[in-house]
């Protein structure tokens, strides 16, 4: 703790500001939301918070690391299918085949691919480690070759697309386009009971908060500085003696692990995982959440996931079939006028208010706390173009 304190520049305001905000956010999610929301809305929020976990990962890889990760659906899907298959096998019971494996009539016993997933001790770590391993292999190859920008984006996207083709093509093994659905239980919790759904919600919130805190620490620490430097000028970092490939790889692998974790939580919360959730379009949408929230600010990246999905749900409830038009409009507006997302807009407003003479509560609200480091808030113009 003391070493941390030494690292702080002199004159930094009391570091409690973040704590206060964090506690408010945690309290909102843990106390206010469950109290205010109906079971249905709460389970929707749980789903959005699963997406927020993906968004934190994208915030790290894309926002801080500048890697346009357009294929996170792949990792989300692996996590989801690992967990989903485990739940299906457990639901089916000892020696019985899950229903999705019986449709094709091909299998009399559990196929070798799914056998290990009958154990939770294998399935849950795999939901996170498998995406990380794949990202590590892929990333090592890509970053060593100094592939970046759109080439990296296209590559990552192609993998998500390929994954969907594999899932759909092997429908006897994976449930095909249907995906996995009709889960009954989740480690003793009944996924169908409202009270257990609430428990699941709390699990998701806690996981999200932990993931957020750890990622934030990573970003604010020494590694985060190097990552941002790599994003802004890879060559300069290389000349300084760092290995940019390794720096980027770490962020990419972490983001993949978070997407896998989100997938594993998504399955019991939502009760379905299907290729429709992890193809090219959903993968792009994931980046859009982050871009809309504000990619350079982790909390806003996560908030973006919640905001976009909440908007999607409520708009399509009010105007069925209207969401697509609004989504298109929203993204055009963001790209044209809010390149830094909502976070950027808030910063503008705050700067505007900051110029006004101090008046009462609002001024006090704005004056506490600290400025984010300059380089984090201002992305490199060349990276912007890519």
């Amino acid at each position, binding site marked *: *703790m003391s070493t941390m*304190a030494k690292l702080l520049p002199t004159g930094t*305001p009391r*570091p*409690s*500001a*973040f*704590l206060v*905000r*964090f506690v*408010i*956010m945690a309290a*909102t999610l843990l106390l*206010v*939301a469950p109290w*205010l*929301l*109906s*079971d*249905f809305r709460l*389970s*929707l929020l749980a789903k959005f918070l699963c997406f927020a976990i993906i968004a934190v990962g994208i915030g790290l890889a894309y926002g801080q690391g500048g890697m346009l990760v357009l294929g996170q659906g792949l990792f989300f899907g692996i996590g989801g299918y690992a967990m989903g298959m485990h739940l299906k096998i457990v639901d089916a019971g000892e020696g019985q085949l899950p229903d999705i494996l019986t*449709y094709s*009539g091909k299998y009399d016993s559990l196929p070798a691919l799914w056998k290990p997933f009958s154990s939770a001790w294998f399935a849950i770590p795999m939901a996170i480690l498998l995406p990380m391993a794949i990202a590590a292999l892929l990333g090592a190859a890509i970053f060593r070759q100094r592939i970046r920008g759109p080439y990296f984006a296209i590559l990552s996207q192609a993998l998500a697309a390929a994954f969907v083709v594999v899932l*759909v*093509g092997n*429908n006897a093994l994976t449930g*095909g*386009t*249907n*995906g996995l*659905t009709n889960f009954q239980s989740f480690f003793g919790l009944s996924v169908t009971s409202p009270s257990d759904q609430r428990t699941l919600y709390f699990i998701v919130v806690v996981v999200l908060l932990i993931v957020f*805190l750890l990622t934030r*620490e990573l970003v*604010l*620490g020494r590694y985060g500085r190097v990552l941002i430097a790599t994003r802004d000028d890879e060559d300069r970092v290389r000349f300084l003696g760092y290995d940019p490939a390794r720096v980027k790889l770490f962020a990419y692998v972490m983001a993949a692990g978070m997407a896998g974790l989100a997938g594993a939580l998504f399955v019991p919360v*939502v009760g*379905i995982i*299907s290729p*429709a*959730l992890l193809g090219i379009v959903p993968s792009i949408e994931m980046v859009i959440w982050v871009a809309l929230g504000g990619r350079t600010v*982790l*909390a*806003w990246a996560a908030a973006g996931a*919640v905001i976009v999905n*909440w908007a999607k*749900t*409520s708009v*399509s*409830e009010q105007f*069925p*079939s209207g*969401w*697509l038009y609004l989504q298109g409009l929203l993204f055009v507006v963001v790209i044209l006028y809010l390149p830094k997302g*909502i*976070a950027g807009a808030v910063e503008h407003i705050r700067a505007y208010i900051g110029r006004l003479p101090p008046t009462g509560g609002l001024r006090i609200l704005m004056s506490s*706390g*600290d*400025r*984010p480091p300059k380089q984090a808030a201002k992305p490199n113009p060349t990276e912007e173009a890519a």
Partner: protein
Amino acid sequence: MICRILGPRAGRRCLAAVGVVLAVAVAGCGSDDSSTSASTSPDSGDTIAVGVLHSLSSFMAISEVSVKDAELLAIDEINAAGGVLGKQLKPVVEDGQSDWPTFAEKAQKLISEDKVAVTFGGWTSASRKAMLPVFERNKALLYYPVQYEGLEASPYIFYTGATTNQQIIPGLEFLKEELKVKTLFLVGSDYVFPRTANKEIKAWAKANDMKIVGEEYSPLGNTEYATTINKVKKANPDAVFQTINGDSNVAFWKQFSNAGLDAKKLPVISVSTAEDEVRGVGIKNIVGQYVAWNYYQTTPGERNAKFVKAYKAKYGSDRVTDDPIEAGYVAVHLWAKAVEKAGTTDVEKVKQASKGLTYDAPEGKVTVDGSNQHIYKTARIGKLRPDGLIDTVSESDEPIKPDPFLKTYDWAEGL
């Protein structure tokens, strides 16, 4: 203290995030209040809320929008005639977005937020499979209005479309008896319905000396069929059995015709192209080809004439009716009839009242089979005529008893 470990920066950003989460939560609960206060139980008040859940956007919209329209027409008719139990029906329309998890989410929303007494919805089997656990765990009712692959009988779903033995098997028998087909090629969309249907077709073919010379699947929403059609040409079958869904039909039929194929050279029988899809396909690409359904716009009878007239009057004279449209329309009337009989919208009582219930539908008299909640249907093989409508060229003598698990067929053992 924790804050020191965490580091001092980025505070403001978090405050902002808190604000957003709060705003979201408050907004979420705001919309919540309005919907929960508006309706408490389906029977209370002067109206009964009913859910209508179809894909109104993306690749299934071509087929599902018309079914939604038919269901709304039936609701209008019932309301005009005084409603159900003296109460008006209030439809709550939701968009499934051609996305299965969305179907599940919207189904849950209709049940727990809108408190609907029943939901009419779905088209693809994937969407039904996604909704099934939602309806089962809430003990709520779904009426599913489209033919499907069978092998299912959920206690909370009524199936008003055909199951295999009312559509696919009659279609195969027609190919064998009337067209003397010896070799067959299977083309379908890559999801549960075509895969399962083809599994059944293969078992049937084995028992009936028909040879399956090829099997091709394309992703849902696919628009590139050149390769598939080349493979079909190469295999040179006597006929093609087609189970392509949604707007892929447009691409398939256009490219089929562009490849120089037509009904004379290579007959195709489809179980998922109906009058409504033909509007998008273009009749010249499909004229003379065969389809297997239980209802066509041309199906004779007073009742159908009335239905077609009402549908066109409401939605325009250029619109057509077809099998799933009719099945959606029938679903609403069947449910209303069951509710009147039961005297309540209580799910278990409605199910009980539905057993053996008959209704004078546009396709003819239909009866609900109490054991599996499917309905008796007349199988009709149709041929596309130059004006885009379909003539019945062969039909079963009487409505066929639904047999979703094909228990009465020896060849189907072990499916």
